[in-house]
C-alpha cells in the first residue's frame, strides 16, 4: 500500500492533558545586578526550582551582568552557593544545577559603559547560535532604581532591545519611581525602547498564591459577589502589619518611608483586588483594566482629616526590647520619615459609594498580619430580646494573606441551653492550597509568567502612575502641615493615638488582626 500523505500538525498534541499549556520558548535572561542580593536570594533559586520542575526550556541561558571582576567559573560557583543557601527545595540536585549552569555566563561591565553593551550583544549572538535562544530575551533589572533608565537607554542605543527575530521583554524591580513625576519619567524612558506589552513591573505580592486566592475566592464562588457592595458592607479594613523594624535597610528606608514602601504598591494592590469588578476573563489587560478603574474611582483624599502618619519610638515587641526608628543604623536622629500610615478612602462608584475603606500599614506593630476584612452591616431588625444579644457583633469576613493564609467568617450562634442567648463565633477556613502543601515562591511564578508573555500579575503603567498620584497628594498635604512630632507611637503598639480617632469618629473601630 502506498504511504498516505503525511498529515500536518498545527499544535503539539503530546501536550494534551498536561497542566502547563506550554513551555516558554528557549530564551536568554540577562540579569543586571547579578552579583547582588536579590539575584542570590530570589532569582537564581527561582530559576533553579523552575529548571528542576521542568518548566524551563532546553537552551535556556542566563547572562549575569555586574561590575565585580568575576570569571565565569567564579560567577557560577557564587550562584551555586546562593542556590544551596536559599533554594526552597533541598538538597540541591547537582546534575540539574550543572545542566542549568552550562547556560550561565557572565559579562563584567559598569552599567553606563557603551562598549560593554557591545560585548553583551556578542554574547547574546553566541547563545542564539550555540544554544538556540533565537533572539528571545528577558532583560531583568535587579539593580538599584537609579540604574533603570541608564541600562534601558544603553540597551536601546546598542540595538540589543530591538534587533532581529524573537521577543524582548524587560522586568523592572520595585521601587518604580518615587513620585508621580519620576515614575512618569521612568515610563517615558522605558517606552523609548520598549512598548508597554514588553514591560513587566514586579510587585512580588501579586505572585503570592494567597493574593491570587483572593481573586478565586471572590470570582469563582457565586455566593459572595451579591453581597459584596454598599448595601451589605459597612466598611472594609485592609492591614499590612509588620512586627519587624527596618533591619539594615536604614539608608533605603530613609528615602522611602511606609507610604512609598508599602502603601503605594502592596496596599494599593490589595485594595484593587478587594474592590474591583469581575473581569470578563483572566488575561492581563482585562484584569488590569478593572484594577485601574478602582484606583481611578478613589475620591480625592483630604489629607488633614483622612491620613495619619507615625514613627515608632523604643518599645517592646514580642517580649523583646527594641530601639526606636531614630536609633536604627543609617537613620538620622532627627528623621521625619514615617514608619506608619493609615488612610481613610472612599471609592466613588455604584458598588462602593459611601462605604469607607480603612487602610493601614506600619513597622514594629504588635504582630505580623496582612489581611482584608469586610465588615457587614447589622441585620435590619433583630427578633431577639435585648438581653439575648448583648455580645453580638456584625458579621466580618476576613481574607488573610499572611501569616496563616485563609478566611474566617464571624457569625452569630445560639449558646446551647434552655434560654435564648446569642454570641459571636468565628469560623475559620483555610483555602485548598494551604492544606499544608508547599507553595512555590512568588518569584518562580512571576519569572515563568514573564517568559510565557503573561503580564496579568505585573503592574501596568497607568496602575503605577495612579498609585503614585495618590502618594503625591498625601505628600503634598504633609508638606503643608507643620513637621510631625515624631516618634509618636511606641514599638509594639498599633500606631499613634490619632489612628483610633480616624476611624472612631465614624463610629467604628479597628480590628485586632
Amino acid at each position, binding site marked *: 500500500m502506498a504511504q498516505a500523505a503525511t498529515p500536518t500538525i498545527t499544535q503539539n498534541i503530546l501536550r494534551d492533558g498536561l497542566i502547563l499549556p506550554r513551555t516558554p520558548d528557549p530564551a536568554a535572561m540577562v540579569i543586571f545586578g547579578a552579583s547582588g542580593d536579590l539575584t542570590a536570594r530570589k532569582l537564581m533559586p527561582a530559576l533553579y526550582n523552575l529548571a528542576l520542575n521542568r518548566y524551563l526550556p532546553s537552551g535556556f541561558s542566563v547572562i549575569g551582568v555586574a561590575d565585580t571582576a568575576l570569571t565565569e567559573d567564579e560567577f557560577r560557583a557564587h550562584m551555586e552557593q546562593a542556590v544551596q543557601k536559599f533554594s526552597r527545595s533541598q538538597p540541591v*540536585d547537582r546534575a540539574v544545577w550543572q545542566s542549568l549552569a552550562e547556560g550561565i555566563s557572565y559579562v563584567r561591565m559598569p552599567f553606563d559603559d557603551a562598549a560593554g553593551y557591545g560585548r553583551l550583544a556578542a554574547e547574546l549572538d553566541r547563545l542564539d547560535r550555540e544554544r538556540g535562544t533565537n533572539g528571545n530575551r528577558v532583560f531583568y533589572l535587579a539593580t538599584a532604581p537609579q540604574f533603570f533608565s541608564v541600562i534601558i537607554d544603553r540597551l536601546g542605543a546598542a540595538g540589543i532591545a530591538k534587533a532581529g527575530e524573537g521577543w524582548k521583554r524587560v522586568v523592572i524591580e520595585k521601587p518604580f519611581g518615587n513620585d508621580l513625576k519620576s515614575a512618569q519619567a521612568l515610563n517615558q524612558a522605558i517606552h523609548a525602547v520598549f512598548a508597554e506589552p514588553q514591560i513587566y513591573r514586579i510587585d512580588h505580592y501579586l505572585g503570592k498564591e494567597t493574593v491570587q486566592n483572593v481573586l478565586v475566592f471572590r470570582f469563582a464562588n457565586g455566593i459572595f459577589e451579591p453581597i459584596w457592595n454598599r448595601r451589605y458592607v459597612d466598611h472594609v479594613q485592609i492591614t499590612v502589619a509588620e512586627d519587624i523594624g527596618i533591619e539594615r535597610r536604614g539608608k533605603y528606608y530613609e528615602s522611602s518611608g511606609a507610604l512609598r514602601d508599602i502603601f503605594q504598591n502592596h496596599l494599593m494592590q490589595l485594595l484593587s483586588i478587594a474592590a474591583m469588578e469581575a473581569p470578563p476573563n483572566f488575561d492581563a489587560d482585562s484584569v488590569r483594566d478593572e484594577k485601574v478603574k478602582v484606583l481611578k474611582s478613589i475620591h480625592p483624599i483630604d489629607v488633614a482629616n483622612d491620613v495619619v502618619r507615625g514613627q515608632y519610638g523604643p518599645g517592646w515587641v514580642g517580649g523583646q526590647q527594641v530601639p526606636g526608628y531614630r536609633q536604627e543604623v543609617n537613620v538620622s536622629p532627627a528623621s521625619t520619615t514615617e514608619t506608619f500610615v493609615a488612610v481613610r478612602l472612599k471609592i466613588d462608584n455604584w458598588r462602593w459609594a459611601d462605604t469607607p475603606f480603612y487602610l493601614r500599614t506600619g513597622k514594629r506593630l504588635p504582630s505580623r498580619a496582612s489581611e482584608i476584612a469586610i465588615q457587614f452591616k447589622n441585620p435590619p431588625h433583630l427578633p431577639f430580646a435585648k438581653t439575648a444579644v448583648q455580645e453580638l457583633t456584625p458579621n466580618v469576613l476576613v481574607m488573610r494573606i499572611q501569616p496563616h493564609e485563609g478566611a474566617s467568617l464571624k457569625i452569630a450562634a445560639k449558646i446551647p441551653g434552655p434560654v435564648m442567648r446569642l454570641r459571636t463565633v468565628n469560623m475559620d477556613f483555610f483555602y485548598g492550597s494551604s492544606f499544608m*502543601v508547599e507553595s512555590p515562591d512568588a518569584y518562580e511564578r512571576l519569572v515563568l509568567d514573564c517568559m510565557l508573555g503573561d503580564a496579568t500579575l505585573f503592574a501596568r503603567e497607568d496602575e503605577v502612575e495612579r498609585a503614585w498620584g495618590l502618594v503625591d497628594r498625601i505628600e503634598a498635604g504633609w508638606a503643608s502641615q507643620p513637621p510631625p512630632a515624631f516618634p509618636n507611637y511606641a514599638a509594639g503598639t498599633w500606631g499613634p493615638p490619632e489612628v483610633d480617632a480616624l476611624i472612631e469618629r465614624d463610629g467604628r473601630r479597628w480590628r485586632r488582626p
Partner: protein
Amino acid sequence: MSTDHTELSARTFVDVHDIQEELDQVRWGLHADGEGSEAAQHAAAEARASVCNLIAVVSNEPELGEVMSVLDRLSVTNPSRTLILLAQHTREADKLEAEVSAQERTESGHRVSTERVILHAHGEPARHLASLATPLLIPDLPVILWWPGRPQFDNPLFDDLCELADRLVVDTDEGFDDSDLARLLEVARRNKAQASIGDLNWARLIAWRHVAAQFFDMPGMLARLAHIHGVSIFHGSDGQTAQARLLGGWIRSRMARVGIDVPLEFRPEDSLEHGVHRFLIYTGGDEGPARFSMSRLRGGRLSTQIRLGEQELAERTVRLESRATEELLGIELTLPGHDVLFEEALAAALR
C-alpha cells in the same frame, strides 16, 4: 514546621447507627466532654474541611498497616472521611466489626482532621461491605475507591464499590499483566460506569510525557513530529511491563488522533531495574532524521537530548520525581472526571 498529631479516640462497634453516631461525635470533637461543656459549645460553630470520601480495600493485616500509614500521610493534604475495608470473604465464620477513630493534626497553625472507619469482615458479610459503606459517607463529596494491589475483578464487592465510587484508583505497577489491563479498560468503558479510572502508574509517567512534549514546543520541532516513524522503550526485564506499555500506548494514541500510526518497540533489558529507563522517538521526513531521547538517571533525574542528523543539541537534566504513594494518590484526587487520555493510552497499549 512542627507537626502535632493526636489520635482522638478509637472504639469498636458493629451496628451502623452506632458507627454513624460515633462518627458525628468524633467529627465535632464532642467526645470526651459532657453536654454543654465549653468545648462542645465551641465545636458547634466550627468549620471542618473535608475534600472527599476515600474507600480503600485490603485483604490482609499487613496490607492494612501499610494502607493506614499511607492514608495517614495523605490526610495532611487531603482531609477526608476514610473507610478501610478489610474484606476476607474466604475466611470461615461470618464476622463484622468496625473501628472508628479520628486524627487531628496541627501544622503551622492549621488544623486538619480526618475520621477513619476500619470495617473488618469475614465470610458472607465481606461480600456485602458496600451496603455498610454507603451510609457512612459524607454527602455531596466525591467518593474515591482505592484498590491497592490487583483488584479482584470477579468479586461482587468490586462491582458494588465501583458503582458507588466516582473514581477507582489502582496501581498497574502492582503486577498488572495484559489481561488485567484489558479488564481495567473494560471497567472504564462499562456503560453505566460513572467511576473514572486513575492509575498511580500513569501519574508516574507525567514527567516522561512532559519532557517528550517539550521537545516539540521548541521552534521548528513540531513539523518533525508529523514524520515520527517509531519509538523505542527500554525497560527492566522483571516481567512488569505495564508502565512501558502505557507510555507506548500514550504516544501511539496521541499520534493516532492525527492519523499517524506509530510502531512501538519494547526492549526489556536484564541490566535494567524495574520500570521504564529510556524512551526514544525517531523522526524523519524532509527535515532529515532526528532522534529525541529521554533517559532515567540515578538519583531521580531525567536527561534529555536531541540528535539532528549527526549533530547533538543541548542536553538538559531535570527532576524525575519518585513520588510516594500518598503523593500519587493526592494527584489522583485532584483530577476531575474521566481521564480520556489514560483510557485511550490503555486501549492503544493493548492493540
